[in-house]
């Protein structure tokens, strides 16, 4: 099995298990304020890390290219509260313009 299939099926299995466990464990299991607080920060740190890594690295090297322009435009679009699809399109369009013409 290729790495991509291992990632696809492995992540699917574990994520389903996590959902299912929620229905199988008593509510008190994780009803601890500290765990709740930490868990609230988990998506913030992981998604932010993915933003910078996906914008500025290629194969573990830091590389500044057209992606940064696209993501900066995405940030402006989000600040202006445009819809999610429009934000994605502006980011892609900016990046494509820089890649093809600059």
């Amino acid at each position, binding site marked *: 099995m290729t790495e991509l299939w291992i990632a696809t099926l492995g992540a*699917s299995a574990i994520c389903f298990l996590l959902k299912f466990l929620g229905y199988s464990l008593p509510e008190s299991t994780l009803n601890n304020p500290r765990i709740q607080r930490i868990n609230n920060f988990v998506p913030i740190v992981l998604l932010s890390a*993915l933003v910078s890594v*996906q914008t500025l690295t290629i194969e573990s090297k830091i590389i500044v290219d057209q992606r940064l322009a696209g993501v900066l435009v995405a940030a402006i679009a989000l600040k202006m509260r445009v819809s999610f699809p429009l934000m994605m399109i502006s980011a892609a369009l900016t990046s494509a313009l820089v890649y093809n013409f600059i």
Partner: protein
Amino acid sequence: MLRDSLSVAIPVGSYGAAFGAAAVAGGFSVLQACALSLLLFSGASQFAVVGVMAGGGSALSAITTGALLGIRNGLYGMRMAPILNLSGIRKLIGAQITIDESTGVAISQESRGEGAMRYGFFATGVGVFLFWNLFTLIGALGANSIGDPSSWGLDAAVPAAFLGLVWPRLVDKKARMAALLSLTLALALTPILGAGLPIIATVLIALVLGWKAS
């Protein structure tokens, strides 16, 4: 209320096109992109699996990152379990559609009673599931036919999607600090640790910031 559910399901489902395109641009096949949407079915985790693998990370890093982002679905399940009271096959289906949107709509119906919460949960969950999977296929097929992803800007669409997912969570100073620290730490560690691990390492920031109430 069906309108509430559909007004969530249709736009969220259409982000599925962005996911399908991102997955294919990141080296996944159309079948793998669709498998993630069918079997994993949680947007942030799916984008993370694709992001880590596309960045050259190991399958283990991708699975770990996806799983860490999937913990919250388990917490939603704990919240929904006494209301839905599911068993057997219904419990399997209910668990699979336990995501941000279905739980969110269910909780928004709290004042109308548990019947309305159940209806909101299933209408939204099933609706998002159908649209998400349909659009994943469309996005994946589209990206598969366009050649170089960079010339279409797809290389920027993936980090833009992550930015769009984290943005609504940056509601206070501490959340924004967590985001900035994490952006910086992951970037600083990538040349040292390689792809994948630096993203997981940022959970330390969540541990430190969440340890004490503020």
